[in-house]
């Protein structure tokens, strides 16, 4: 087990290294000179040149990269160009929005998708199954930002139950804070919920076809016990894999929904930074999000190593 975890951790570091190089190169070959975008249309060339120098953009890319990654390893992600504050602090200040939003969306997704998937599987090829699958098809097809807008139109504009967006911080109290994240979380989790419900359904159908389930049934084990004791645990392996990947995707998906609901989260930070060519912030946020996603994936690997000991030796 220890060797298994170590191997996964090494893969994690390699992935992060690769991602960091990729991000660094990509943001540097993006068209649009950051110095010019920052200075605006009336800036003099000398002023832009000075800024370019101050930002270190006049040096070769590999040199810039080594300096950046070296400092990043000590926890220093540089300073934001547009806000003039440390990137690390900026990321930390946005986490109290994005993290709960992602977790809430993920929680809602899992809480709704797994029971619904089980429900559909146990009513295989009956109306309950068809209805669930049609609904989830809609969930897959509807883009999150559009769902978000529809939710706002219904629950904020028409009914007035929720505010149309924004986040007033945790200081306003736990319940109001959670409430202001509820609509965006639903919109964010919708797509992943639909995918997970479908995955759960097919995973269970798959397991129900296995010999040991048939054996259990033949032995006269009650249907409920067959489902919960024998099927669900084994079906959870593919479901867990998908859910793990999805948690990462939720974090990435928050970029658009944070704009729709004007939430001051990590996604908004990244989007604004890209528009303003605030390179240190773009790099910092991408590296951070990539670390979270890769870590979740490793955690999932380890988790199903625990669920199914055979996986460890493969």
């Amino acid at each position, binding site marked *: 087990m220890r060797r298994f975890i170590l191997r996964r951790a090494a893969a994690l570091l390699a992935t992060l290294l690769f991602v960091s190089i990729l991000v660094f190169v990509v943001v540097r070959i993006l068209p649009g000179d950051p110095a*010019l975008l920052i200075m605006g249309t009336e800036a003099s060339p000398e002023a832009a040149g000075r800024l370019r120098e101050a930002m270190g953009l006049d040096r070769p890319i590999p040199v810039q990269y080594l300096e950046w990654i070296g400092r990043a390893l000590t926890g220093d992600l540089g300073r934001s160009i*547009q806000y003039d504050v440390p990137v690390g602090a900026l990321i930390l200040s946005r986490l109290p929005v994005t993290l709960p939003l992602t977790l809430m969306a993920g929680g809602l997704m899992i809480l709704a998708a797994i029971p619904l998937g089980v429900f559909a599987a146990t009513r295989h090829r009956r109306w309950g199954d068809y209805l669930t699958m049609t609904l989830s098809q809609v969930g897959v097809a509807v883009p999150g930002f559009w769902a978000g807008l529809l939710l706002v139109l219904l629950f904020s504009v028409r009914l007035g*139950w*929720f505010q*149309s967006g924004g986040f007033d*911080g945790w200081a306003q109290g736990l*319940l109001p804070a959670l409430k202001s994240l509820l609509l965006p979380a639903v919109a964010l989790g919708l797509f992943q919920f639909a995918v997970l419900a479908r995955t759960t359904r097919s995973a269970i159908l798959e397991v129900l076809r296995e010999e040991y389930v048939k054996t259990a049934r033949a032995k006269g084990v009650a249907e409920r016990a067959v489902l919960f004791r024998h099927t669900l645990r084994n079906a959870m392996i593919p479901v867990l894999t998908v859910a793990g990947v999805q948690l990462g995707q939720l974090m990435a998906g928050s970029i658009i929904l944070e704009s729709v609901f*004007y939430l001051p989260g990590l996604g*908004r*930070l990244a989007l604004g930074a890209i528009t303003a060519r605030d390179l240190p912030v773009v790099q910092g946020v991408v590296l951070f999000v990539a670390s979270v996603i890769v870590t979740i994936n490793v955690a999932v690997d380890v988790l199903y190593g625990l669920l199914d000991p055979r996986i460890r030796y493969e």
Partner: protein
Amino acid sequence: MSLWRVMLALALALAALVAGSPAAQAQQQAGTLVVQAAAEPPGLDMTASPATAIQNTIHYNVQESLVKLDKHGKLVPWLAERWYTTDNLNYTFFLKKGVRFHNGREMRAEDVKFVLERAMNPETKHPHRPRYLGITNIIVKDTHTVTLTLKAIDSNFLLTMARPGSVIYPREAVDTLKTAPIGTGPFTVAEWKRGDRLVLARNKDYWIKGLPRLDKVTFRFIPDPNSALAALRAGDIDVSPFGIGPENAPDLKKDPRFQVITGDTTNDVILAMNNAKAPFSDKRVRLAITHAINKDEVLKGAVFGYGKVLGSNVDPLNPYYVDLSKEKSHDPARAKKLLAEAGFPNGFDAVLKVAPQYYYTVRTGEVIVSQLAKVGIRVKMEQIEWGQWLGRVYCLPPCTSPEYDLTIIGHGEPWDINNYANPKYYFRWDNAEFQKLFKESEATLEDKKRRELYVKMQKMLAEEAPVVWLYMYPRLVAAKKGLTGLWKDLPTTALDLSEVAWQK
């Protein structure tokens, strides 16, 4: 049965909990205002960044200058109660007495000297430093009098003194301008939550008695126009002051809860042509394109008929504006004739580059492409990213020659006729006669003479057609009913909230 009842009770309790608070929030507290801002300011210092998002929120509200561009686009005395000059080279400003900065200290002539010297200092990276380099000497006469000496006569000098980069702030607060700017304005900066909101609070000691009328102003940063509209309809914001989409105006006008204010801006939307490149270097081709375009149709298609058709460069808010919109009217037959004369009886192919960052450019482009096709000019529209537009079309250094045939963009700057006197500007229009006229206008201070020159320049531009002036982008403000005191027109980038109030 009892289980159902418990669940129902729980559901109702939850619904009450969830639905309870917004009703209370929706009730308008007296004296507070929530304003939508599409872009977040990248800092709060107008003397360090030219971003209009800073000017939108801070200028006039938090920081003020000696001279102000008022709601009619006129220069009026502000922190300076008057000034005089005998030779148009030495300006003596008499400052208002008893004006206090937000830190309680009185504003003095020393502050003016400090602020202007800092603007000229290359170390401070003032974004508009060149505008101040004509000042050769600053002498503090007494606590409330300061004399500035210019190198040469500059008819735009007072305008420069009214610009966002000329705001007066106290020397002792210079280090915190970026995050907590201090000035003399009707509001103070109370809180800035990056990515979320900027809160301004009433300056109790404002030098104009009775102002401001509001106790608190919250700018919420809502980038998505659909979200902004929903927020307005849901009652989460009170006013969307920087332009709602023209397509939304008719609906909002019908809604009894809202008012839509339409006004003028200094934003001239143009179809620019690369005058250095054939066939646009030929005046006949440029005129043919002008005649081929039906501007009324463009106005309808692009901005739902709001705004005004233009015929030359000066915007309707400028005191020297002359209406030349009927000058080179829609005349496809004439356009074809001109094209034939220029050697293109069968028209030609061209590429129109637009940046979808400003969505009106795409909508305008679609109309124009179809209109030009009718006289045989086959235009392909290409959408490019804003950074590329700035680098290639607008040709910011290191670019040396602009890469485009046609492009559409709004020029928002007031008093920007100087661009046509600059042969290096991305139009690449080089006309010695115009350059002479402009130079003369800069050195002319007498209003009547100056107006004559401006009229002459506008007519000449209409005649030479270096670009096609399409329309003035409209100012469209949506606000809750009962909100008063918003400026109708927008002659400057500032959103002056000092007189805004809720009707009782």
